[in-house]
């Protein structure tokens, strides 16, 4: 059986920071990632980040990722790419598989940083090749350097839909329209302004009624919706598109936390079912931590801080850093993360996080 001090599952922004901080504290650290390349969402973020200097604002996600990859290597973190964690046993044993071969790994502390999956949106014709997640299109154009098609319909005007629409333009595709069933644009005004002045119309109170094509997408029928989300007859428009991207939200990927028998709660503002955790990012299963989107849908900047908080707490409980040091580092991370959880966009997520903490408290002493 393999052994390690800290096993980090997922090498996206949360996992990368967690592995770096754990290794820096002297923990034997293993970083496990299902995809062949590390980086998760970071390697698809080709735009400059928001926030402040301490949040690496103004730096492109891909460049933040590159720096982290270097640190991971310099710290001699045990990197297991193209490796899937297929189960978790007794809260500290992981079954991991690579290239058809499986091994068991015993870790003293486990940090789950497994991210999120895109929500599906079923409409007639949605199974046609050419209908894909917006993130899937982003992976294809930014990581694989291949266009999904020439004429794209984007469904969803949150930040993901708006940003991917812009990236599709940069990649050389035409974005025929961005739709959202809501009567307003959910994403930042600067993202919508950017694509509006590039000639991409954004139609709120609209949805896709049907995708058609023989073997792949050849067109889409879009339609207006009323305040009760009912389709308004007579408002249909035909669009000639070969690709339809779905950007209707993300859901935390938490299978391992379920398997480990963590307690969960339902938080719509954070994407659905989220495992309970405290301010140390520790779940109701001792020694099992979560960080990033799998702990609630937010963004790369907050994922990185949560990865740090989880790692700090894990190495603290391993005795590798003092309680005082852990407290100070955690406080600093929360100071930075605070700025992302205020204002009209952040308030709801802040409330969601506090709700999780309160629910988690109910299990104190009972685990």
């Amino acid at each position, binding site marked *: 059986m393999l052994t390690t001090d800290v096993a980090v599952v997922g090498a996206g922004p949360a996992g990368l920071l967690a592995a770096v901080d754990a290794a820096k504290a002297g923990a034997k650290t293993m970083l496990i990632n*299902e*995809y*062949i390349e590390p980086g998760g969402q970071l390697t698809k973020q*080709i*735009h400059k980040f928001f926030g402040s200097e301490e949040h690496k604002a103004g730096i*492109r996600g*891909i460049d933040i990722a590159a720096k982290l990859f270097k640190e991971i290597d310099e710290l001699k973190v045990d990197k297991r790419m*193209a490796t899937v964690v297929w189960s978790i046993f007794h809260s500290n044993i992981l079954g991991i598989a690579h290239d058809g071969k499986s091994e068991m790994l015993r870790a003293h502390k486990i940090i789950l940083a497994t991210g999120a*999956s*895109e929500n599906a949106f079923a409409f007639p014709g949605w*199974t*046609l*090749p*050419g*209908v*894909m*997640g917006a*993130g*899937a*299109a*982003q*992976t*294809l*154009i*930014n990581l*694989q*350097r*291949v*266009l*999904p098609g*020439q004429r794209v319909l984007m469904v969803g005007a949150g930040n993901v839909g708006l940003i991917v629409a812009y990236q599709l333009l*940069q*990649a*050389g595709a035409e974005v025929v329209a961005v739709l959202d069933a809501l009567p307003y644009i959910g994403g930042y005004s600067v993202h919508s302004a950017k694509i509006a002045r590039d000639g991409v119309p954004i139609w709120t109170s609209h949805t896709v009624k049907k995708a058609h094509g023989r*073997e*792949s997408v050849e067109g889409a029928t879009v339609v207006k919706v009323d305040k009760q989300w009912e389709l308004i007859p007579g408002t249909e428009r035909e669009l000639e598109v070969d690709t339809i991207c779905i950007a209707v939200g993300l859901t935390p*990927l938490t299978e391992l936390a379920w398997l480990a028998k963590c307690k969960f709660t339902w938080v719509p503002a954070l994407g659905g079912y989220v495992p309970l955790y405290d301010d140390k990012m520790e779940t109701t299963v001792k020694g099992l931590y979560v960080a990033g989107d799998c702990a609630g849908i937010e963004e790369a900047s907050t994922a990185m801080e949560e990865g740090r908080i989880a790692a700090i707490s894990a190495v603290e409980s391993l005795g590798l850093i003092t309680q005082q040091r852990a407290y100070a580092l955690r406080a600093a991370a929360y100071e930075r993360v605070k700025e992302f959880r205020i204002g009209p966009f952040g308030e709801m997520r802040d409330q969601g996080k506090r709700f999780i903490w309160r629910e988690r408290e109910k299990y104190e002493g009972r685990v």
Partner: protein
Amino acid sequence: MRIEDHPILGPAKGEATIEIEVDGRKIPAVPGEMISSALIAAGIKVFRRTHGKGEARGYFCGIGQCTDCMMTVDNMPSIRTCITPVKDGMKIKTQSGHGKWEV
């Protein structure tokens, strides 16, 4: 279609120097890219057919979560092509239903 140059990512680093076979047809591939990328770049969007109605399925989630992209690769069925890199001379078949494991 491949993105040869990009305002942020710069010129494409890999060149299509290897070949894979899809249903008998040879298509170019860039070493290290995912099978699905080589297919989409060659204009192939239908990766498999469902076992019930034989409906076309293709690339959907891109990260190995949904299994819509599965094809039979070198006689192994149900390979997720979006997370499996190409190898020179790989033989890929559009999968019908659950596919068959040709030992």
